[in-house]
C-alpha cells in the first residue's frame, strides 16, 4: 500500500495484532466510538467489539494502573494516552508498577503492555499539549522506549511492541500522523533496538529519532549540495538504543550531531552524545553537536512555535560548527 498515512499504519498494526492475538485489548479515552482523537483506533470497535476496544473515563492514572494489573493477569493491553503531556498523571503506574513488577517479583511474571503517547508540537497546541518527555522513560529500568519515524516503522515497531513481553512506551509524533509513505502489503514485525541508516554519508553522522528524522534528511540534502555528505541514523528506539550502529558510523565519519525535538538540556541526546564522546573518543575529530528545543515550554503563537521546533536550518548550522 503506497501512500499509506502514518496514522493508518498504526491503525493497521493494532488491527493485525488484535486479529493475531485475542489477548490484545485497547484502552483509552474516546478510542472506541470516536476512533480516537487522532483516529488511530478508527473502525476497531466494529471489528473487535466493546470488550476489547474500551472507551475509558478520564482517569489516566487508573487506566494505566489497570493495564498493569491486566498485563499481570493474561491480557496484553495497549493504552492510548491522548497527548504525552497527560502521562504525567500516570507516572506511578508506569514507573513504580509496570517497569518494576517483573524485577520486584524476581522474574515471576512479565508485564506485556504498550502505552501509546503522541508527542511533539507543530500544531499550535500550546505548552500542555506538545511536550516530548521520552527522556524520562529512557531513564527508567524496566521500560522500553520506541519512537518510530516512518510509516513502515510505525507499523512494524508497534507490532513488535505489542508482542514484546515487557512494557513499551510507544511515542508517536502528532505531526507525522498525516504523513504518507510506503507500507508493504504484508509488512513485517520490526526489532526493537535496531537503528536504521536512513541515508549513507561519509562526512558527519546525524543521529536522530521521530519526526526530526525528516529535518535531518532535509539538512543532509542541502549539505550534499555543498559536497558535505551526512550519514543520517534513525535510532527508532531510545531504550534500548543501537549504540553499535552509531559508533560504527562515527568511526567512519569522525563527526557527529545528535538532534531531537525534545528540549535539548538533559534530553535523550545527552546520553547519545555522552556515549559517543566516551566510547568513540578516539574517532572524533570534533565535538559532538546537539540540536534540541530551547529551554522553555512549547509556546503557542505561530511566530513562536515555528522558531521553537528544531528545523533543518538548526541541524545544518550544527553540522557546520562540527565541520569548522
Amino acid at each position, binding site marked *: 500500500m503506497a501512500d499509506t498515512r502514518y496514522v493508518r499504519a498504526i491503525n493497521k498494526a493494532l488491527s493485525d495484532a488484535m486479529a493475531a492475538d485475542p489477548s490484545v485489548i485497547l484502552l483509552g479515552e474516546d478510542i472506541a*466510538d470516536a476512533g480516537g482523537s487522532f483516529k488511530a483506533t478508527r473502525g476497531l470497535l466494529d471489528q473487535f467489539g466493546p470488550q476489547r476496544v474500551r*472507551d475509558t473515563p478520564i482517569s489516566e492514572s487508573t487506566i494505566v494502573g489497570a493495564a498493569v494489573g491486566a498485563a499481570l493477569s493474561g491480557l496484553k493491553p495497549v493504552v492510548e494516552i491522548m497527548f504525552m503531556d497527560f502521562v504525567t498523571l500516570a507516572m506511578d503506574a508506569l514507573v513504580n508498577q509496570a517497569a518494576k513488577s517483573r524485577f520486584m517479583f524476581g522474574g515471576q511474571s512479565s508485564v506485556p503492555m504498550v502505552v501509546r503517547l503522541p508527542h511533539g508540537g507543530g500544531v499550535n497546541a500550546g*505548552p500542555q499539549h506538545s511536550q516530548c518527555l521520552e527522556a524520562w522513560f529512557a531513564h527508567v529500568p524496566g521500560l522500553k522506549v520506541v519512537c518510530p519515524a516512518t510509516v513502515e516503522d510505525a507499523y512494524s515497531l508497534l507490532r513488535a511492541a505489542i508482542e514484546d513481553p515487557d512494557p513499551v512506551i510507544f511515542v508517536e509524533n502528532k505531526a507525522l500522523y498525516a504523513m504518507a509513505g510506503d507500507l508493504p502489503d504484508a509488512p513485517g514485525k520490526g526489532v526493537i533496538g535496531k537503528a536504521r541508516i536512513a541515508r549513507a554519508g561519509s562526512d558527519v553522522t546525524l543521529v536522530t529519532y521521530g519526526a526530526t528524522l525528516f529535518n535531518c534528511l532535509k539538512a543532509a540534502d542541502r549539505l550534499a549540495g555543498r559536497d558535505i555528505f551526512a550519514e543520517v541514523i534513525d535510532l527508532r528506539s531510545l531504550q534500548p538504543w543501537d549504540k553499535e550502529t552509531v559508533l560504527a558510523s562515527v568511526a567512519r565519519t569522525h563527526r557527529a550531531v545528535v538532534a531531537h525535538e525534545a528540549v535539548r538540556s538533559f534530553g535523550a541526546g545527552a546520553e547519545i552524545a555522552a556515549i559517543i564522546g566516551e566510547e568513540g573518543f578516539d574517532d572524533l575529530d570534533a565535538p559532538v553537536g546537539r540540536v534540541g528545543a530551547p529551554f522553555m515550554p512549547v509556546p503557542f503563537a*505561530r511566530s513562536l512555535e515555528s*522558531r521553537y521546533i528544531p528545523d533543518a536550518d538548526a541541524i545544518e548550522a550544527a553540522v557546520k560548527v562540527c565541520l569548522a
Partner: protein
Amino acid sequence: MTRPAPAHGIAGNSRLLDLHRTMLLIRATETTLSKLFADSEIPGFIHLSLGQEAVAAGVCCALGSADTLATTHRGHGHVIARGIDLDGFFKELMGREGGLCKGRSGSMHVADMSLGILGANGIVGASVPLALGSALSHQTLKTGGIAVAFFGDGAMAEGALHEALNMAALWSLPMVFACENNGWSEFSPTSRQFKGKLSTLAGAFGIRHILVDGNDPEAIASAALEAADHARTAGPAVLECMTTRFRGHYEGDPQKYRDAGEMSAMTEGDPILRGRARLAELGVEAAELDAMAAQAEALVAAAVEVARADPLPDFDATLADVYTPLEAR
C-alpha cells in the same frame, strides 16, 4: 469592558440586565471566535462554551474582587464574565504580542492575575487542586476571598475531584466546586464514562451540594450567591449546573455522534433567549435589549480589529518568561 461589580444586594432587575449583558458579550465573542477559527485566524484548537453562557455569568456575578477562580479548556465565558480585557483576550487567542499572556499559550491558558483568574487549563481536572490551593491562601492569609474551581462533568472521573473534596472538607476551605454539567465528555455522553452522582459524592464528605438549571441565568445567579456565601462563612460548597454545549467539543468537530433531534432541541433552552424573555416580562424594552446585543457585537468587532493590528510575539523575549528575571524579584 469593565469588570462587573459583585452582585450582592443589587436589585434583581438590574442584576438580570448585568447577567444578560455578560451573556451577550460571551455569545458575541465566541460566535466571532468560531468565524475567526474557520478563517484560520486562530491557531491551535479552541473549545467554545456557546449555550453555557448563563453558568459563566451567574457564577461570576457572585464573586467579589478578592475572589479567585481556576477554569478549564472551555473557559472563555468564565474569564469574560470575570471582566477580562477583551482586546488582550483576542490578542492572546490570535497569538499576538499584546495578548494577556503575550501569545505564549492561547485559548487553553488565558489568565489575568489582576482579576484573580489563575488560568484556563489544558489538563482536565487540574483547575480543582489549583482552586483548592488558592482557597487555602484565602483562609491562611485571611483575604476574605473564596476560590472557585470550574470543571466539567467529564472531569468528575479524575481522582483530583475526590482528593480535593476531601481536603476542602477537612480544612473547611472557602471554595466553590462549580461543575458545568453539559452531559458531554468530548465525543461521548458522560453517562457512558462516569457512574458517580456528584450530589452523593459531595454528601460523602459532608459538603453542601446545590443543583441548578444551568441555562437559567437568574437561577444560577442566586444559586451561585448561595454557594459563595456558604463558602465564605461555612466552608466548601458544590454547585452543579446542568447546561448545554451548543457546538462540538472543539471547533471543527463534525459531531457525527449527535443526532439532529438533540441539535435542534437544545437551542430551545438557549439561556440568552430565556434571559431575554424574562427581561421582557419584567418590562424591559426589546429595543434596549437589541441595543445591548449590538453593543456587545461592537465591542467584539473592535477588539478583533485591535488584535489583528497587534504585532506577533518576538521569540527572544519569550525566554525571559520561563524564570523570574532578577530585576523582577
